[in-house]
C-alpha cells in the first residue's frame, strides 16, 4: 500500500507535472516556429476586457505584431525547455505564469464576454490557462520540483 505522503511520490508527481507543462509550452512554441504563417493576430483581435486596447495597438502596427509573435514563440520555447530540463526553473515558472496570465486576461471567460474562438470545453471565470498558470507556481516554490533537472547541479555547485 503506497502512502500518499510518500516523499518519492510527491517529488515524482511534481516532476511529472513539470515535464507535462514544459512539454505543452515547448510544443506550443515549436508549432509556431514550424508554421511561419501563424500569427497572434486572430487571438489578439478577439481580445476582450482590460487588455483589448493593448491588443488593438499591437495588431494595428505590423512591426509590433511581428515582434510580439517572435517573443511569444521563443518565450514559449525557452520556458518549455526551462521547465523540462529544470534549468533556471524559478525564472521559467514565473515567466510561464506571467505569460499564461496574459493569455488569460486577453480573453477571460467572464460572464457576458462571448467568445468568437470555439472552445473545447465550458468555462466560467476559471479555465485551463488559469489553472496551468497557477500550477506553474508550484515549481517556483517547491524545491523538490527542481529534482531531475540541471538546476540541482547548478545549486549544488553554488553550495560547494
Amino acid at each position, binding site marked *: 500500500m503506497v502512502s500518499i505522503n510518500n516523499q518519492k511520490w510527491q517529488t515524482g508527481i*511534481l516532476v511529472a507535472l513539470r515535464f507535462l507543462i514544459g512539454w505543452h509550452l515547448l510544443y506550443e512554441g515549436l508549432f509556431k516556429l514550424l508554421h511561419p504563417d501563424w500569427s497572434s493576430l486572430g487571438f489578439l483581435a478577439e481580445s476582450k476586457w482590460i487588455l483589448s486596447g493593448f491588443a488593438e495597438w499591437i495588431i494595428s502596427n505590423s512591426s509590433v505584431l511581428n515582434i510580439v509573435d517572435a517573443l511569444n514563440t521563443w518565450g514559449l520555447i525557452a520556458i518549455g525547455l526551462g521547465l523540462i*530540463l529544470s534549468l533556471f526553473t524559478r525564472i521559467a515558472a514565473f515567466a510561464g505564469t506571467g505569460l499564461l496570465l496574459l493569455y488569460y486576461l486577453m480573453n477571460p471567460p467572464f460572464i457576458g464576454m462571448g467568445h468568437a474562438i470555439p472552445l473545447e470545453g465550458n468555462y466560467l471565470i476559471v479555465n485551463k490557462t488559469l489553472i496551468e498558470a497557477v500550477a506553474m507556481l508550484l515549481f517556483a516554490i517547491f524545491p523538490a520540483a527542481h*529534482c531531475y*533537472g540541471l538546476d540541482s547541479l547548478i545549486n549544488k555547485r553554488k553550495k560547494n
Partner: protein
Amino acid sequence: MASEMNDKNDKRGRLENSISKAGNMSGQNQNNPSPGRRKVLKALAGLPVVGLLGLQVLRKTNYDNKHSLQRQLVDELGLSDLMSSVKPVTASEGETLRIGIAGFGVRGGQLAASLGFMEKSEFDKKSAAGSLDAHISQGNLNVAITGICDVFDLHAERGIAVAQHDIFTGGEIAKKHPVKRYMTFHDMLADKNIDAVIISTPDHHHAWMTTDAAKAGKHIYTEKAIIRREEEIEPLYKAVKSSNKVFQAGHQYPQNSVFQQAKEILDRGMLGDVSHLETTTNRNSEEGAWIRHLDSNGKPKPGDKKSIDWKQWLGNSSYVPFSTQRYYSWARYFDYDTGLYGQLFSHEYDAMNQLLGIGIPDTVVATGGQYYYTDFGDIPDVLHTNFEFPDKGYTLTYSANLTSSKFRPRSIYGKDAWMAVGGDLTVTPDGRSEKYGDMIKRGLVNPSAPMIEIKRGALTASAVDAVSSASTRYYEDRGLVSTNIGGRIWDVNHLHLKEWIDCIRNGGTPSANIEKAYEVGVTIAMADISYREKCRTKWDPVQRKIIRL
C-alpha cells in the same frame, strides 16, 4: 485556532523539508554507480523528455506532410503556381506628371491620398496613431497635383491644401509645386501645364467632362459611373478613342491580388460550365444610402449659395433652387446619378466583366422600388435586375438592398463549383460535380466547405484605417480598398492610379480602359432605363443602341 495554524505551518515546513530531501535520498539504496555520477544522470532527466518531444514533432511533421489534405489538394488541383499569377508591384519612374483634379469632395480627397497627397493635419493625426504604414510604404508615383477645380470654395481650398502638402510616400519628400484653382473645368483643360485630369465630381458631370478632356488632349481618370444617360456614351467613346491619350475608369477591383487569382482559377475552368453570375449590394445606414447632407450633430453640412456656384453645379440638369440636400446627397437623385447602378453596381459589373469578359447583355429587366427612404430623392432602396447573355449561356443578377447589411458575396456558379470573390476568395465544390466527384468520395474535398480559400491577408484593422464607416466596410468586403501583394498591404486605388500613370509614361492599356468602360456604361444605361421606364431593354450591337421592348 492559533495552535491549529502553528500546527499546520509546522507540518508544511516538515513536508517541504522532507520533499526537498527526497530528491537527494531517492535511489540511494540502489546498486548504482557512484553518487556523483548518479546525480549528474538525474540532473539530465529532462533531456530524454526533450528528445522524445523532438522525435514526436518530427513524426508529426512527416505524417502531416504525407497526409496533408491541403497538400494533396494543391497537387491534384494544380494550384501550386496560383500565387505566381499575382503581378508584383514595380516602381513608377518618369517625368513628373502634372495632374488636375475636378471635384474635391470625399472621393477627390481619397484619390489624392492614393496618389500620395494628404492634408497635413490628417497626415499628422494618422501618423501619430501609427496607421499610415501602408500609405507611407506605397511607392512615390512622382506626380504633382497642380490644379484643383471645384464649385465649392471650401472643397477647392481643401484640395489646394492637400496638393501643397509634401508627398511622403516612398519615404521621400517631394518638391513643392504651385497649385492653381480653376473656376471652370474648361479653364483647367485650356492650361497646357496640366497633363492629366482626374474627374471625381457628381456623376452628371462625368460624361461631358471626359469627352471634353479627351478632345483637349488630356489623359483622363474618370470615377464611376462614366455616364448617366445612354446618349452620352457614344460621343465619349469616340472622343476617347480618337485621342491618343490614356483613359482609365475608376473600377479598381482588377488591381486586387484576389481578383488576379480568381481570374486564373476561372481561366483554368475549375468551376465547370458557368450558369449564373450573382452580384449584390447590402448596406444599412443613411450614409450607405447616400443621405449625407447632415453632420453628426444632425445639422446641415457647410455650403450655401455664396460659397457654391450652384448654376455650374447643376450643369445641364434642370433648374432647382439651391439645396444642401441635393448638393451632398446627389446620388439619391436620378437628375444627377443612376443611384445604385452608377455608385455600386458599376464596380460589380466591371469585376465580372474583367473576370469573364461578359461584354454587354442581350436584354435587361429591372424591378424594385423606393419603400423606405421615401423623403429623399427618387432612387430605389430595393432593386433586382436580371441581365441575359444567351450566347454565353448565363444570366447575371444584381440584387441590392439599402435596408439590410447582411453580407452576400459576389458569386459565380458553375456546374462543378462556385466561387465567392471579393476581398477574400473561396471556391466550393458542388456536391453533384462530376469533375470533383472522385475527390469528394475520397474525402479530399467537401461540398459544405471551400476547397480553395484565399484571405485578403491584409490586416483589416490597419487597412481600413481608423475610419471604418459602414460604406468603407462595404468597399473593403468587396475588395475595393486594400490588397496584399508580396506580403505587403497595398491601397487598391493607389495601384489603379499607378496603372493609369504607368500607361501614360510607358504606353500600354490600363485594365478599366475605354472598351471595358463602354461595356459597363451601356449596361448601366440599359438597367437604368429598364427601372425608370418599367420596360425590358435590349442591346442592338450593330446600331449600338438600346431598344425598349
